């Protein structure tokens, strides 16, 4: 722990804020530039930062294998949101017509399915970013 004190300290102080910013981008996807994909990529990058500075185990400790398997598959929830449209008697991925409340434009809770899909995609991309980097940089393979 005495090695690389500056880099390690700065990295660990910044990581929570980077993640917070990623969440901000995800949640404001329908209001400001950005969205699930971009915010997810930022969060994924912050996990990569942890892996770069502290080693791969640090990230594994925080986002375990089980959790990332589930998050990988969170596209499932995307498709399930789409099925709401069919259940309501409209088409796949129907948003407003299917009765999903879209709220007042400009408010945080607006956009209906857009808001939900942003979150789902964000989680998915964050974990995929981590998975890609881990798979590429793992030291020895089983």
């Amino acid at each position: 722990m005495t090695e690389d004190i500056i880099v390690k300290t700065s990295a660990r102080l910044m990581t929570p804020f980077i993640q917070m910013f990623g969440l901000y981008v995800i949640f404001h996807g329908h209001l400001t530039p950005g969205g699930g994909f971009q915010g997810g990529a930022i969060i994924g990058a912050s996990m990569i930062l942890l892996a770069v500075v502290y080693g791969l185990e640090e990230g594994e400790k925080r986002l375990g294998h089980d959790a990332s398997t589930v998050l990988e598959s969170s596209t499932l929830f995307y498709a399930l949101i789409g099925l709401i449209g069919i259940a309501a008697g409209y088409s796949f991925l129907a948003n407003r017509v299917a009765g999903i409340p879209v709220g007042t434009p400009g408010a945080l809770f607006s956009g209906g399915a857009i808001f939900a899909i942003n979150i789902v995609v964000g989680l998915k991309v964050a974990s995929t970013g981590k998975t890609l980097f881990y798979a590429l940089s793992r030291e020895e393979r089983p």
Partner: protein
Amino acid sequence: MIHEALSQYNYIVSSTLFLIGLYTMITRRNLLKKIIGLNIMDTSVFLFFISMGSVEGGRAPIVIPGAEDVVYVNPLPQALILTAIVVAVSVTAFALALTIRLYEDYGTLDADRIRELRERGT
């Protein structure tokens, strides 16, 4: 004036980048270099799309509440390119994984050398 004469400069630069990327992909023997070339080629196509969507005096396609008579740029190419960027990243990541495995097997990243080694091997 000059601006008029060069009004297509976005497209010209995009074509140039495309050619550079393609040339890199074909003539460089190093696999990683090929992948970088692929990325350059992809970004050039993105530049082409986004330039196609730009409008003189347009604003970014985020609605300004209450403003009338605002010209927004074309949002559709931007939406398409977001998708295409994800695709490009996926392909790049997979290609890098393949490159790492190839290096483990052959100890080199030179495409010709790999072919040579493989033909000698089998």
